[in-house]
């Protein structure tokens, strides 16, 4: 089944809308977890309605103060962060942040994390039925927390256990965000699919570090951090490509997207939507610019809609969007 019905921006232009596992996005550009807070600050920069959707900061059961500083290190084409899932806890997010965000009418996907399988399920259950929450993104890929996080995402069985538990706790569409810090991402993607994921987000940050040569010690307070930005784009793109050819779920491509052209690359590789992360830290207006540039590209190239482009680079003979099973496009 082809998805992507709806009206794009303005009459006559390409149809930008996307149906992501039942979540209707006006355009395929989301903002990545942890680079947009809960939208409050960003609403001072631009009309959030310009976005396809908003993925919130990683949210846990209890409030988390985050990791010791320094938490940020610059790299030649990106940054390392070791924020450590600082967040006010799910109850505060439901009480204060979601009510603010829902006024924009843009789909809000809450990124959730936990130290145990039960914690993920509890957080998911609390978000069930909360007005203004369109879906959950299960973060089994945070490299910056000692317990939970990436520990789950590097093991297909543990990933499946988390996804199953969350699946049982909620009827919301479930995105599962995978870590690139594995030998074979397809194996983990398959486990997530079998456990009930509705979509996959590829990828979270790559584990890395920086050393302060003056002090002769690791620069980040948490020693290691997650690498993001243009530096990881080729890795993220390769993983989207691999997973799109093997798993029959829509994919949100993420990693180093700075421009509309970068976004289009992910679509061509088989992603149905994209998420802009670090680019927002560099320039707060990056995400709406990606939407504009992508729409302009589609129009110039004469595409009627986003869905036409999804997976196109997979070439003749490769599975095309809509071919099931194993198609690169929307499920």
């Amino acid at each position, binding site marked *: 089944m082809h998805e992507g019905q709806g009206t794009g921006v303005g009459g006559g232009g390409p149809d930008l809308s996307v149906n992501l596992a039942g979540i209707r996005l006006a355009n395929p550009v989301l903002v990545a977890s942890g680079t947009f807070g809960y939208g409050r*600050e960003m609403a*001072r920069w631009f009309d959030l309605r310009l976005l396809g959707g908003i993925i919130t900061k990683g949210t846990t059961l209890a409030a988390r103060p985050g990791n010791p500083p320094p938490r940020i290190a610059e790299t030649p*084409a990106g*940054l390392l962060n070791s*924020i450590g899932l*600082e967040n006010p806890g799910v109850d505060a997010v439901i009480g204060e942040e979601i009510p603010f965000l829902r006024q924009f009418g843009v789909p809000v996907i809450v990124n959730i994390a936990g130290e145990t399988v039960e914690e993920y399920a509890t957080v998911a259950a609390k978000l069930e039925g909360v007005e203004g929450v369109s879906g959950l993104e299960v973060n089994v890929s945070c490299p910056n927390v000692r317990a939970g996080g990436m520990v789950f995402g590097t093991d297909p069985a543990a990933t499946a256990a988390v996804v199953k538990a969350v699946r049982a706790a909620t009827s919301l569409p479930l995105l599962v965000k995978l870590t690139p810090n594995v030998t074979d991402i397809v194996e983990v993607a398959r486990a997530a699919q079998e456990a009930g994921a509705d979509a996959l987000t590829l990828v979270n940050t790559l584990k890395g570090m920086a050393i302060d040569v003056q002090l002769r010690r690791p620069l980040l307070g948490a020693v290691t951090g997650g690498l993001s930005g*243009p530096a990881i784009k080729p890795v993220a793109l390769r993983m989207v490509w691999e997973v799109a050819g093997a798993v029959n779920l829509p994919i949100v491509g993420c990693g180093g997207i700075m421009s509309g052209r970068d976004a289009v690359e992910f679509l061509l590789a088989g992603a149905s939507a994209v998420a802009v992360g670090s680019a*927002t*830290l560099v320039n*707060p207006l990056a995400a709406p610019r990606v939407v504009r540039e992508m729409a302009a590209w589609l129009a110039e190239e004469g595409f009627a809609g986003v869905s036409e482009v999804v997976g196109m680079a997979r070439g003749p003979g490769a599975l095309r969007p809509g071919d099931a099973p194993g198609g690169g496009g929307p499920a």
Partner: protein
Amino acid sequence: MKEWVEEDGRVLTCAEVAPGHGCIEVLAPGLAARALPGQFAMARSGTRFLARPLSFFDIDPGRGVVAFLVRAAGEGTRALLCLRPGDGLGLAGPFGNGFPLVSGGTLLLVAGGVGVAPFPPVVRRATAAGTGVRVVLGARTAALLLATAQLRDAGAEVVTCTEDGSGGVRGTVSDALPGVLRDLLAGAPGGCAFACGPPAMLVAVARLCEEAGVPLYVSLEARMGCGFGVCRGCAVPAAAGGYLHVCQDGPVFPARAADLGGVARLWEHAGDGDGGGCA
């Protein structure tokens, strides 16, 4: 009026003001109209991935101009000092809370090195409100005493200290401070102090102000991702445990709110940078 703007500034002048330090004047009417003393902008240097936080050294809404006093601390700031008149400079801001408004009495400003950067606008605002301002300015050597002319022009009384004795009092600001504080308290009780500079200096200043019973606000540094509150990257240790966020809760904090010793440990290696500016 939207509080924050993203602005393509145009460099008017970029000149060396001391070894490894330059002053960059930028035509940026949006920022000039909005910035308050003690706030900062994020400057995109083109060559680096992340933007760099810089305090407003001058805010001139009339001319639509802001200025930055920049120390060549590393590659990003060095690239900024290589800008030429007419070059573009991507800016965003103004961010942060700025220094509180003090009216009446005497305001004491304590600065170390390029930490003086946010103070000229503070002096101008205070003197306009009828507040007397005294500045204690420290540097390693006389050539690195920055912005003395701007501070005096703005109406402040300036005491300088150099570690090598080449200008003003020999020693650090903490050597000069007890005397200044005594004077200040004898003249007008109920004064207030603001400090900006190396965290180790802030620790010493906080101790002296605490002993003298003078309330102190400090402007803190942190490595930043965004500069406007979304990434949570700019945490520094709070006195009460947990963290403060420099870009959003600060950069100005009551000295008691921060664990200044903890902040100093984060920056203990930060020396004089590698100099070699371009301007």
